[in-house]
């Protein structure tokens, strides 16, 4: 084998390793984006799912319509809309001595990814709520619980358990979709990998493999983590009711 080729390959891996810290900062941003977006998605999507199942005609229609629009729009379009049209402001948060400034692009990304995820999460929760047998609600009502109490103490705890597999999927999707924020210039994992292989064009494969490995580790950890939560909360004897 031509010794220069070997040297070249080694050089490209060395290049990746030299720049690993640069990529890992991007990975941290990817994780933060995912967590915050998922959280926003949950806080908005869960009540939205409840409204879709138990809400009145008007509220259900409104929530469904917003959901259809968000699910029917490409994520890049949503992000561009948030950033350029809605022009999100930057935000400075102070907690004790620490102040963090969140860039306008970060805010736009969280809103875009989070609200779109809310639209998908609402469907996960809607399905889970509907899958809980009607008799459960009726039994709770029959001991004098109000509809709200019955939903809260009887239906929701069962529905949340059933939504874990769908939620698991959603985390994986959002995690990978954070890569789309390069469209508005946020330097997350994929944006940084692009910067790198533009600098050293022979290292495209090495950079992409390395970044893929990071994505794989991240999705693997979240999936295993949610598996553990799922089995921790699993109802002994199953959910026959």
């Amino acid at each position, binding site marked *: 084998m031509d010794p220069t080729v070997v040297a070249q390959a080694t050089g490209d891996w060395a290049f990746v390793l030299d720049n690993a810290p640069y990529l890992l900062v991007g990975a941290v941003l990817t994780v933060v984006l995912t967590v915050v977006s998922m959280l926003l998605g949950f806080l908005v999507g869960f009540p939205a799912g409840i409204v879709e199942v138990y809400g009145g005609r008007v509220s259900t229609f409104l929530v469904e319509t917003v959901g259809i629009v968000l699910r029917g729009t490409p994520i890049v379009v949503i992000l561009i809309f948030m950033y350029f049209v809605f022009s999100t402001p930057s935000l400075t948060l102070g907690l004790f001595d620490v102040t963090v400034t969140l860039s306008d692009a970060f805010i736009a990304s969280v809103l875009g990814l989070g609200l779109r995820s809310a639209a998908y999460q609402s469907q996960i929760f809607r399905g889970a709520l509907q899958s809980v047998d009607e008799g459960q609600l009726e*039994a709770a009502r*029959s*001991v004098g*619980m109000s509809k709200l109490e019955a939903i809260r103490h009887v239906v929701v705890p*069962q529905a949340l358990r059933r939504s874990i597999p769908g939620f698991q999927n959603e985390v994986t999707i959002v995690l990978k979709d954070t890569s789309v924020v390069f469209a508005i210039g946020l330097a997350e994992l994929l944006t940084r990998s692009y910067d790198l292989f533009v600098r050293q064009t022979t290292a495209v494969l090495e950079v992409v493999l390395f970044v893929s490995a990071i994505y794989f580790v991240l999705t693997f950890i979240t999936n295993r983590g949610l598996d553990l939560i799922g089995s921790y909360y699993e109802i002994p*004897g199953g959910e026959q009711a």
Partner: protein
Amino acid sequence: MSDNEHTYLLEVDRVSQSYGTEKVLRDISFEMDRGDVTVLVGPSGSGKSTMLRCVNRLTEIDSGNIYLDGERITGPDVDVNELRKEVGMVFQDFNLFAHLTARQNIMLGPRRVLGLDKEEAGKRADEHLEMVGLTPQADSYPGELSGGQQQRVGIARALAMEPKLMLFDEPTSALDPELIGEVLEVMRDLADRGMTMLVVTHEMSFAREVASEMLFLDGGKIVERGPPEQLFDRPEEDRTASFLRRITEMHS
């Protein structure tokens, strides 16, 4: 109702109910005294379960009145949650809360509705578990219990609210034959303790032994009512006779 009049525990007064255009109950009237066990029998679709569900307003009536302890419980001004504290219900499919243990199933109502603290509710749950003979299963989940055990928890759950009246909607119909006995035994025991019970069932031996009165419903109407001996041994209506003969043969 005036004060000097005798107040029944339950009085059903000319109740009618329909689903869409389908008339389910037509002008039903009957009454129960404290300690009565009234058994509703009749072919499927005769309105028995609907009648039962109207008493705790899981189903709403179209016309007529229902009184519990002299108080009208029908009408838009009645707080259904208050009513349901007084009227326990046992379901055909048990409907135990699947994510809670037997003990927690019984505790939920007393805690959330009656406002008992955890300790009091737990004590009450333990008493009722003992009453239905399930102390060892206190921490089992519904999925870990047999159908008969689940239904006994269902009875304990309703009893823990200390209701004035218990409704049983075909409590043994979903059970394997060998598990029916244990549930009927608990119900018999309850009747002996003086609980007022309105029961929809096809268990004719239970009806004959325990009922103070039987109502035979067909097509949403009471065809015949009276003590079980009358309905079984000298029914006045042919429909009563042929229905009871058929159902008794089927179950023996």
